[in-house]
């Protein structure tokens, strides 16, 4: 059973994480400038250094 903290907010242990709440309230931040910037930085990084052990395949 999930514990509640002093403010009554539910906290969960790892065993309970499988019951993740799916909610439309979360939204989708795919086009948010913050994440666009992050993904571009990551892409630049990978173009420079590649991946470890080449197990992920770069699309041609």
């Amino acid at each position, binding site marked *: 059973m999930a514990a509640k903290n002093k403010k009554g907010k539910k906290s*969960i242990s790892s065993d309970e994480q499988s019951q993740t709440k799916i909610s*439309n309230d979360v939204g989708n931040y795919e086009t948010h400038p913050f994440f666009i910037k992050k993904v571009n930085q990551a892409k630049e990084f990978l173009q420079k250094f590649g991946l470890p052990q080449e197990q992920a395949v770069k699309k041609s």
Partner: protein
Amino acid sequence: MMNLEGYAYSTNAAFTDYSFESIGPKGTIKKIARFSQIPDWHNVFNFGFGDLNETTGEISDSVISNNNDGDKVLVTAANIIYEFTGMFQNAQVFIQGTTPARTRKYQMGINKHWLEIEPVFEIFGIKEQKWEPFRQGVNYEAFLGRRKTSFVF
């Protein structure tokens, strides 16, 4: 995943975006995490994570929240990564902090919980422009994690 208390979180139907609330002396701070497919890199996702300003819609990962729950937030982020990679078993997750200090914070989190992380994930770090298997006590510029294929939960 980790035998530690994290915040409860929600995700969207695609399991790409997650939110939870950090609660502490500075009040309630909404955190957003997202796994973004990196264009041209098959099955490689950037893990982006920051504080949402619900008034402006801005997200920042450069603000130091000082909400006295840093470890709990890190555990929650780890649980989210665990959840996502459980859903997408071939996903490789790229993680880099905004600043070296923030990257170091992630590294300290990995170090601290290494005994729980290591059986489940392969973690690599980049050092001096080369990827190497994660070693405790080494400073890295970025990380890449993926589920160990032989791991059976």
